[in-house]
């Protein structure tokens, strides 16, 4: 099965929904840092943009837009304490088993097996929503990304696993 072409679908959807042009990001160059140590020695930070939050945190808006806020999810958070706030995609399977989307427990397992050196103590969840503000791409790639990178570095992250929503 050929991969679904999401860009034309989203472009048509944005136009039909009166949202204007579907915002697409094209980098001006390539970011690259070689891994400095074996994977089994690396600490991994998890960042997910699928609108997940802990049940005791302020939820993301189900149809939110231009939301730059970040939820901190402690690495030991039980699956039952997590909830998906988004209404942009079908997350019934993830509601039943959050590991299909937010693999925090799986990362802990891999660290326990020695496949990874460890998992950073805090994972980060975002629920940006639709991009309606023209300033959103620049803010996300600038101040938001820089803040998340700083937080990950402060936790001793060697690499980050980015999971889209």
């Amino acid at each position, binding site marked *: 099965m050929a991969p*679904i072409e999401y860009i034309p679908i989203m472009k048509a959807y944005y136009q039909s929904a009166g949202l204007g042009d579907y915002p697409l990001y094209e*980098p001006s160059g390539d970011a690259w840092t070689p891994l400095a140590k074996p994977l089994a020695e690396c600490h991994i930070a998890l960042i997910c943009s699928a609108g997940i939050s802990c049940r005791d945190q302020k939820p993301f808006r189900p149809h939110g837009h231009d939301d730059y806020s970040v939820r901190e999810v402690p690495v030991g958070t039980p699956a039952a304490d997590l909830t998906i706030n988004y209404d942009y995609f079908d997350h019934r399977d993830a509601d039943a088993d959050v590991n299909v989307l937010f693999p925090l427990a*799986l990362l802990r397992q891999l660290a326990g097996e020695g496949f990874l050196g460890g998992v950073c103590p805090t994972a980060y969840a975002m629920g940006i929503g639709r991009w309606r503000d023209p300033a959103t791409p620049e803010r996300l790639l600038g101040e938001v990304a820089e803040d998340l990178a700083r937080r990950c570095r402060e936790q001793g992250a060697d690499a980050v696993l980015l999971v889209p929503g």
Partner: protein
Amino acid sequence: MMHDILELNRPPRAAFVDMPIGHPFGRPFDPAGQLAVLRDVLSLLATAREPGRVVDLPHGWGEPFTFTPGQRR
């Protein structure tokens, strides 16, 4: 999940699995399958040699699926 968007965005390391949106690590209650995807994704940290290349991982949904924005499967 979104091959064409990954090709456009060119992250340092990118793994594609042919799964519906919301299922980057596969089906629910399939820990073996989920771990297999995660191991392969993380292995790219060590095996990738250049940025911007989307690696197609051998993990798929196993049946056809479609995508309609805002609609459930």
